[in-house]
């Protein structure tokens, strides 16, 4: 292992903080609830601690890199740059909250050691994806993420879960195969896969350009499966059979974000945004993202199942990131990349709330939500904030993203994006506002839907604390990310730093 000197161990610690508890938890007997909880939480806090340390360091110009030999001519590289730290910070905070939520959600349910073991491995892979310093390391963690999320998707062990699992794998493994093909091809041409600020391809002869375009298509298709770009999004609504904390994590930080993050890396750090624009691949990518944004929203309108409606909303929202990346200009980049964080905060809130409704009152469908705001005011308040954010109502975080995307589109001379943004916001409103209207303004039914067989009685309480606190906190974070966007510690400020490094080198 070379490169282990100096600052190499911090990226390793971030990965290990999720990996080690996960491996230990696999070996724990079911009934060791307390020890498992301690392990989970200490891992989550350790990750926040190490992430904070690196954030501080990178802000002050330090760099953190771990490198070890892997293949002939290719190293495994974990590196913390400003972009990876954005993703890592998001995943650390949301991992902690989701862990708390999952502990509450799965109380007394079977196979929790297996669940939390894979849950931790899922966070491990996400950390690896975020800190990958080259495309081979990225590929490794990206595929690992597929493997460790599968047991979470089929966790319930029903026939429906098994089928959903097969669909999930059919999409993700095929995507992985395309990605692998693209990466090998790229490597055969360039002999390097290192992420670097202006990309690694601009010096290549123009005879390579057709091949580079084909590779771009392969890479984006491979990443687009996880990022749920239309028409590769089919797995996402199916994967809804998973338990709520899994859906929350999958949608907000882990799987779809790994895809979107990969697109950011490929466009900026492999191709380089200027070179990608010169190749003419950014325009079609932006179009694809725009189509996905509108299509996801349209499909969401028609869903009565709450989790499925949220799933199609994810399809739409994640593509804002791709859209921002594909529009060539610093402002659009800021809008896209900051949405990585904003969408995460808002969407995890919505899924936590959906889980609370299902767990507490047995509500799974939109039409069962009449008057639920009176029974569960805190949950629905958080849901409302999240929904407003998705629509883009100021000052919630989603507004900031859309504002920068719009400005960026105008700056880059792509005015067609504005109607897309407006149309999407109208559609967002059309599928979220009826939910809010039902929840707050209609009368509650005489009794709530029957709960599942492991009925839990919360009496007069809204729900368990462990289920209530996480969505309230994430909703507030989404609010403050918008409200305090111009302060030095906001995600927006950090993303401006990233965009500066991408454009003004």
């Amino acid at each position, binding site marked *: 292992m070379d490169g282990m000197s100096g600052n190499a161990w911090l990226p390793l610690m971030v990965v290990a903080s999720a990996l080690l508890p996960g491996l230990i938890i696999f070996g724990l007997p079911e009934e060791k609830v307390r020890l498992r909880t301690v392990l989970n939480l200490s891992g989550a806090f350790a990750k926040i601690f190490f992430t904070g340390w690196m954030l501080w360091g990178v802000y002050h110009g330090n760099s953190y890199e771990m490198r070890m*030999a*892997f*293949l*002939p001519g290719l190293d495994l590289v974990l590196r913390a740059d400003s972009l990876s730290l954005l993703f890592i910070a998001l995943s650390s905070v949301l991992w902690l909250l989701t862990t708390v939520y999952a502990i509450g959600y799965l109380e007394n349910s*079977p*196979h929790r050691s*297996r669940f939390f073991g894979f849950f931790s491995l899922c966070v491990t892979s996400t950390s690896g994806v975020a800190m990958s310093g080259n495309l081979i390391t990225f*590929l*490794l963690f990206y*595929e*690992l993420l*597929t*493997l460790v999320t*599968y*047991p979470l998707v*089929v966790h319930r*062990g*029903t*026939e429906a*879960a*098994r089928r959903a*699992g*097969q669909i999930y*794998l059919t999409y993700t*493994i*095929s995507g*992985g*195969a395309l990605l*692998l*093909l693209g990466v*090998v*091809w790229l*490597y*055969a041409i360039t002999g390097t896969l290192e992420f670097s600020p202006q990309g690694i391809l601009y010096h290549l002869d123009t005879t390579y350009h057709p091949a580079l375009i084909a590779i771009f298509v392969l890479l984006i298709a491979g990443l687009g499966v996880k990022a749920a770009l239309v028409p590769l999004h089919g797995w996402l609504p199916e994967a809804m059979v998973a338990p709520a904390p899994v859906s929350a994590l999958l949608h907000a930080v882990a799987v779809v974000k790994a895809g979107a993050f990969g697109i950011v890396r490929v466009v900026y750090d492999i191709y380089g945004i200027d070179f990608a624009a010169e190749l003419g691949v950014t325009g079609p990518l932006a179009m694809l993202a725009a189509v996905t944004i509108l299509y996801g929203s349209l499909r969401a309108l028609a869903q009565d199942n709450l989790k499925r409606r949220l799933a199609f909303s994810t399809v739409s929202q994640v593509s804002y990131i791709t859209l921002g990346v594909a529009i060539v200009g610093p402002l659009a980049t800021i809008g896209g990349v900051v949405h990585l964080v904003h969408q995460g905060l808002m969407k995890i809130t919505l899924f936590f709330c959906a889980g609370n409704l299902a767990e507490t009152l047995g509500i799974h469908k939109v039409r069962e939500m009449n008057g639920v705001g009176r029974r569960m005011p805190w949950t629905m308040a958080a849901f409302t904030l999240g929904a407003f954010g998705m629509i883009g109502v100021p000052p919630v975080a989603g507004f900031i993203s859309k504002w920068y995307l719009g400005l960026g589109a105008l700056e880059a001379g792509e005015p067609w994006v504005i109607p897309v943004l407006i149309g999407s916001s109208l559609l967002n409103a059309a599928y979220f506002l009826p939910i809010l209207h039902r929840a707050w303004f209609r009368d509650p039914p005489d009794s709530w839907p029957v709960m599942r067989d492991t009925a839990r009685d919360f009496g007069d309480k809204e729900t368990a604390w462990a289920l209530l606190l996480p969505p309230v906190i994430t909703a507030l974070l989404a609010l403050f990310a918008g409200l305090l966007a111009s302060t030095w510690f906001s995600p927006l400020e950090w993303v401006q730093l990233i965009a500066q490094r991408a454009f003004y080198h």
Partner: protein
Amino acid sequence: MSSLLAIDWGVIAILLPLAGGTACVLWPALSKPAGLISVTGVVLAIAGLGWRIMENGIYRHAVGGWGAPLGIDLFADGLSLIMLIMTALVGLGISFYARRYFSPRDAVRFWPIWLFLLAALNALFLSADIFNLYVTLEMTGLAAVALTALTGRIDALGGAMRYLLATLLGSLAYLLGVALLYHDAGSVDIATLAQRIQPNAAVWTALGLMSAGLALKTALFPLSFWLPPAHASAPAPVSALLSALVVKASFYILLRLWLELFGDFAQGASMLLGLLGAAAILWGSLQALRQTRIKLLVAYSTVAQIGYLFLIYPLASAGNGIAAGMAAYLAFSHALAKSAMFLAAGNLMLFGGHDRIADLDRAVQRLPLTVAAFALAGVSIMGLPPSSGFVGKWLLLDAAMSQGRWDLAVVMIIGGLLAAGYIFKVLGYAFTQAEVPHDARAVPAGMEWAALLLAIGAILLGFMASEIFALIAVDLVVNADEAGTVWTA
């Protein structure tokens, strides 16, 4: 320390299992301890040999003091060493599994034959001439057939019979090739042959006969018809030995012949081998996907995985060192993963009393270590990271892409997808409840751990590619001035 270095570890690696096997025959009651001691001893001997090779370069030992071309030479370079390490480690894992697996009645048959097989394999990987290779290959084949027929059940006997015919026919073809080469060049020593043979009609005929015979024994599609029934009907540890080690023996000989004798002029034949390999990947994977029983699924997966080994031939123009490294790495990776998979399948059979995939009945909760072993081995088989299967596939893909062999690259990618299909077919049913739930039978922890450790080995090997290539490369350097390194004890 230097006295330890001077020991002829290669000789020990052959004689120790022979002695152990003889002891098993003489004193059947002691066969289990004798077997375990011998196998552990072989692991140590191979470690000693590896140390010696790393210190002194290529290992040569003239048995009885008669060197080539008259006597029998033992010879080991990096490629042989890797095959020996593979045999020793996988054999150790399977032995610890077999310790608990066999009833006393079967155990007294299993141990002596397995130890003879181990001796034959070690001798084969240590041989430097094509006639010795024939003798050891024949011993390997006969021991393997005997193991297949071990239980004496009807299906096992049928599988063994077909296997016997295939293996005899294969060796016969190989032997004819040996005779032709000896007649043409006047030697059976590979190094001598390499200097003497020219492409002529006799050499071409020898090439055809030897390749066909070895391809039959390695079960290269379409000569793979005998493998699924033989491997699926044998007891689990035997299936593991056959799939992981025995098919590698004939593959190794073919690789040696190609690297040292035929590779320079037989480009067309290389292409043919590659084509068959590609067909094997597709056909074997599709067949595996169709199976409803785990052991047959795993056996067809072997047919497919052997296909990957043969893709090396058309891609070998990257250089012998790289080709040998890739071959050794892929073989090692497959040996670990496939043995783990067969052992896990054996556990699942013991646990449920059957190996129907659709009735796995929550094995993931009731037999987690075994399912973990199957899953980890499966990750390597389908070539997903982080595993040795991924690294092996990456090396092949990289070679294919740099040589513009798109067809081969696409076949490899499709093969990976199909493999994911059949692996996750098993894993998906391991999560669900069967329609008719059944009671689980206990599986000894040692058998679960043996499978899991082999599977973990297949994952960890994924981080040791540079070590494997370094072993191969050390030899290439030493080869350059061989005179200084040929020495006998």
